[in-house]
């Protein structure tokens, strides 16, 4: 068999060596450093930043304003907010919070609504709820439309759950109210200086009973609605939002205009108001906040109303949305709700991490006992695999849920599979060809042959994982994501990086047999 031996020695490795050894090592180190760079924000956020800093970053701008934090702190908070976009966030099941799905109560309608009508209904509700969100006092509130079925709201760390729900379920009102110009004239106007530090008006006795103080709200640079100008409005609702039909933004003769139509009944009322109060201000009020206070220029008879002024396009769009939204025309029902207390979440994280560490340790022991040095190497690659997985999740600002943690743990257990398949293949080939072919060639060929089996074996698990990622609901999706990404990284690491390092280990250290330090056969 000597002829065969000669033939084999001349053969180099099955893969084409298009990269030199040093380049490969540098690439691996770079990959490692890049993963560290991706993970740094997460580590900084959870382990370096103080609890105070984290709390500030999670606050709404309104709360920060109330706390009167210094400009320095504000700058720091801005930095931290940017940082927070590059970390692994915790899901509601881990940090505690309130998750709600609201659906319109369709039993109020005596007919089946079309998809378009449903969509419009939900859009309206979304607008109104978005307008109310700042009242929760949580900066990280997420609100999302789910199909034409409902609205999903996530409020992390919600403290007063009952209050949050009350705010969500309120019907809400868009009203037209007249400015009480008579009272304003007698008390000589009203300004923010007339309010004490608690926001109370200093001279409540001056306000007549049928009027009340309202504030004109404007968006500040953060996009939060803030109190701008106080004024006094008649409490009487002249007209409510249900009368509004079509709303449009136009770039007309007087610049940007917001126009809307009224239903016949509304048009008649509106004509009366405008005719009686020419030259006065009419306030458009949404949930007690004045959105706009145009002057009545002329009586408007036909229900075709135009509001003009020095609008920017953005302001006009906002007003358009507010007019469109009006009040909730249909009550909302809480169709799903999950609230998780902060204790349970914290507990889950510590226990999950503990389970992972214990498990990973035992897996390491099993691998070393089974394959000695090769097993240790495989284990190091698995740890690197998990490290890269976590870095990858951080890069995509992934939200980690409890099933997500389970997915990572499962990756540790299943990740060794690829190496096990290769080692077993090497063992099998080695036993068949005892002393006949160079060990290095057996190792190399085994990698090539086993690659197909590895891809094959991973594919079926991948099918389940990907399906869970796309079709699974709620926190289960997180499990699908960590499992899928983990499996893909695992295949990459084993077949490309791991293969090269393992073969080079054999080459450099001139292992002659698998029995001793290679550890595949005892």
């Amino acid at each position, binding site marked *: 068999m000597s002829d065969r031996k000669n033939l084999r020695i001349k053969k180099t490795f099955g893969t084409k060596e298009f990269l030199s050894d040093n380049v490969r090592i540098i690439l691996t180190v770079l990959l490692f450093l890049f993963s560290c760079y991706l993970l740094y924000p997460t580590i900084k956020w959870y382990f370096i930043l103080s609890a105070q800093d984290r709390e500030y970053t999670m606050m709404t701008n309104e709360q920060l304003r109330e706390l009167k934090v210094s400009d320095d702190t504000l700058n720091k908070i801005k930095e931290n907010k940017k940082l927070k976009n590059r970390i692994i966030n915790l899901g509601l099941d881990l940090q505690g919070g309130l998750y709600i799905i609201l659906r319109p109560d369709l039993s109020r309608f005596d007919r089946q609504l079309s998809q378009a009508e449903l969509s419009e209904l939900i859009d309206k509700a979304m607008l109104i709820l978005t307008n109310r969100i700042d009242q929760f006092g949580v900066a990280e509130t997420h609100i999302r439309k789910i199909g034409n079925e409902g609205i999903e709201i996530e409020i992390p760390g919600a403290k007063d759950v009952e209050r949050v729900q009350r705010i969500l379920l309120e019907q809400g009102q868009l009203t037209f109210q007249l400015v009480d110009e008579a009272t304003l004239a007698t008390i000589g106007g009203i300004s923010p200086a007339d309010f004490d530090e608690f926001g109370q008006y200093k001279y409540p006795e001056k306000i007549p009973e049928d009027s009340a103080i309202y504030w004109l709200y404007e968006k500040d640079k953060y996009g939060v609605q803030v109190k701008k100008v106080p004024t006094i409005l008649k409490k009487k609702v002249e007209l409510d939002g249900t009368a509004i039909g079509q709303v449009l933004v136009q770039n007309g003769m007087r610049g940007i205009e917001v126009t809307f139509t009224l239903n016949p009944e509304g048009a008649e009322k509106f004509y009366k108001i405008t005719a009686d109060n020419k030259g006065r201000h009419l306030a458009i009020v949404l949930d007690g906040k004045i959105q706009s206070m145009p002057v009545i220029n002329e009586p408007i008879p036909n229900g075709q109303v135009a509001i003009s002024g020095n609008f920017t396009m953005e302001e006009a769009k906002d007003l358009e949305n507010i007019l469109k939204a009006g009040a909730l025309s249909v009550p909302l029902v809480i169709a799903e709700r999950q609230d998780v207390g902060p204790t349970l979440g914290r507990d889950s994280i510590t226990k999950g991490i503990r389970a992972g560490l214990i498990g990973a340790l035992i897996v390491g022991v*099993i691998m070393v006992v089974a394959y000695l040095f090769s097993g240790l190497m495989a284990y190091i690659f698995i740890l690197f695999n998990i490290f890269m997985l976590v870095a990858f999740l951080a890069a995509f600002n992934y939200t980690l849920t409890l099933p997500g943690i389970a997915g990572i743990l499962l990756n540790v257990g299943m990740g060794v599979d690829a190496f096990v398949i290769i080692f077993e293949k090497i063992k099998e080939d080695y036993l068949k060809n005892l002393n006949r072919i160079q060990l290095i060639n057996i190792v190399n060929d085994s990698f090539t042959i086993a690659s197909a089996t590895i891809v094959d074996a991973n594919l079926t698990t*991948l099918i389940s994982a990907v399906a869970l990622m796309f079709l699974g609901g709620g926190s289960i999706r997180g499990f699908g994501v960590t499992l899928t990404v983990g499996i893909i990284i695992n295949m990459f690491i084993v077949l490309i990086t791991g293969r090269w390092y393992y073969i080079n280990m054999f080459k450099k250290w001139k292992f002659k047999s698998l029995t001793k330090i290679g550890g595949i056969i005892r």
Partner: protein
Amino acid sequence: MKKIIPFSKYRYLAFSFSICVMLIGFVFFFINGINLGIEFTGGITIQIQFSKSGVDIENFRKFCQSNGFGSNITQLGGADSQHYVVRLPTAGDTNLNNQKIEDFRAACSASFSPSDYTILSANLVGSSSSSKLSFSSILLLVVVLGLILLYTLVRFKEFKYSFGAVLSVIHDALFVLSIMIIFKTELNSQSLAAVLTLLGYSINDSIVVLSKIKENEFQYITSNLSKDLKRKIAKEYQQSNTQMISSFMENIDNSITVTLSRTMITGSTTLVMTICLWLFGGIPTRDFAFILSIGIIIGTYSSIFIAAPALLFWGNPKYD
């Protein structure tokens, strides 16, 4: 050289064992039914933990009944954990459901001091949501099973092998379902995810074993091409201490034996992780980890005793 372990000799024993477990599961199904989670039935669950001693399950049940919260109470984590889950039915698709949770909070704060208990979580799934969730779960199950079956059919090209793989998947699904019924494990979206994951895992195990058999069969069949070649190969086998395989059944046993260490090592490392999650991972993932742990054992067992011996249904040809 490793001795071939005659696994397929025990196939009828294994088949009978599996069928027995499934029958027991079937009987329990008629006694207890399936413990469906609120995702599928609609409902409210509230998880509460008492830190004050003396609120045992009887006391807590009395408290629930006297306040109109029924008596569907489960104790979590051991006999003296004082950690309970109350389950309430929903009242249609209205906000009364939500009110019940608030009522429960109010009743608790009226009866206990705030430092004595923690409401860990409260979940509500209304009836419209539950029907949507049930639908999407069934869709998920059908899609995953369909894709796995399709994959095995494409993968093996030969019906015999696909049959073995499919049989083991069906076996695993029914087996796990039986175990869940017997142990009254709740079927919810999490446990469904666990079942789907282990189906993927188990088919992967079966595929490795089955492809080994197929690969070997090709090798043995080519051995009867020419006498010279046969002799040469026989000599090589002798030299390498590999046993000669004389029948398909022996091929199966040999292939299982060869892949056994891979099956066992991967099985045990995965099992270690799920058992750790089960023991140390806390209550929210306990059922999930339980199903995965049982499932990995079943998946390993079925690839050895179900998937591979099932090939013998199609005869036991002799190689020569």
